[in-house]
């Protein structure tokens, strides 16, 4: 099963966690990205994610594999939604298991940071007041990321 998957519908997290259980793992860390009711001080009514699925799944899998090599974690995976999401819905899930907690936390953090920076997924937000738009953040200054 792939280490990074795009899901166009709500997904269950228990089976994802189950996959990461390992006799050698004493630690598990996860991250959940939820849809928030505000962005940049503006009230958000809902949002929509779209993805270039083939490239997103390839790049996402590379990120998770790289995270395992860098951190020494045993296993990790990430699932990211596309489609319409309401406030409070789960947008992205990352989990990592490792012998000890440092590697589990490190892998988990690194994966979500890299997914946000590299994977071809775009967020479209709808604001109270009627306007809406795609988020295309400016690139961070050189040297600002690890």
């Amino acid at each position, binding site marked *: 099963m792939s280490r990074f998957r795009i899901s166009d519908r709500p997904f269950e997290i228990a089976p994802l966690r189950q996959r990461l259980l390992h006799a050698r793992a004493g630690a598990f860390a996860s991250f959940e*990205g939820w849809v928030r009711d505000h962005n940049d001080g503006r009230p958000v009514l809902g949002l929509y*994610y*779209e*993805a*270039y699925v*083939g*490239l*997103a799944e*390839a*790049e996402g899998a590379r990120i998770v594999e790289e995270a395992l090599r860098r951190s020494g974690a045993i296993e990790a995976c990430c699932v*990211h939604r596309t489609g319409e999401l309401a406030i409070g819905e789960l*947008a*992205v899930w990352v989990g990592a298991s490792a012998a000890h907690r440092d590697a589990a936390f490190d892998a988990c953090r690194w994966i*979500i940071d890299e*997914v*946000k*920076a*590299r*994977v*071809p*997924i*775009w*967020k*479209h937000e709808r604001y109270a007041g009627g306007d809406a*738009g*795609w*988020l*295309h*953040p*400016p*690139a961070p200054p050189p040297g600002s990321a690890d």
Partner: protein
Amino acid sequence: MMARVTLLYFASLRDAAGTRSETVETGAADLGALFDEACRRHGFGMGRERLRVAMDGEFARWADAVRDGAEVAFIPPVSGG
């Protein structure tokens, strides 16, 4: 030499192009020139410096040659996660 390529548009580039994809005949030598042609056609509000490019499902470089039959995607700044 002309090549037939399918261009994929996402997010605000798709809004500007009015379509998710189009198939074109192009004489563009590289992906940068291919983007310039598309930009003249659709009037994108962002230039190459903010975009990445992918060919046949893998990240590519603007200087890469256009492959006949390829699927080329222009990747605006991402906002997943």
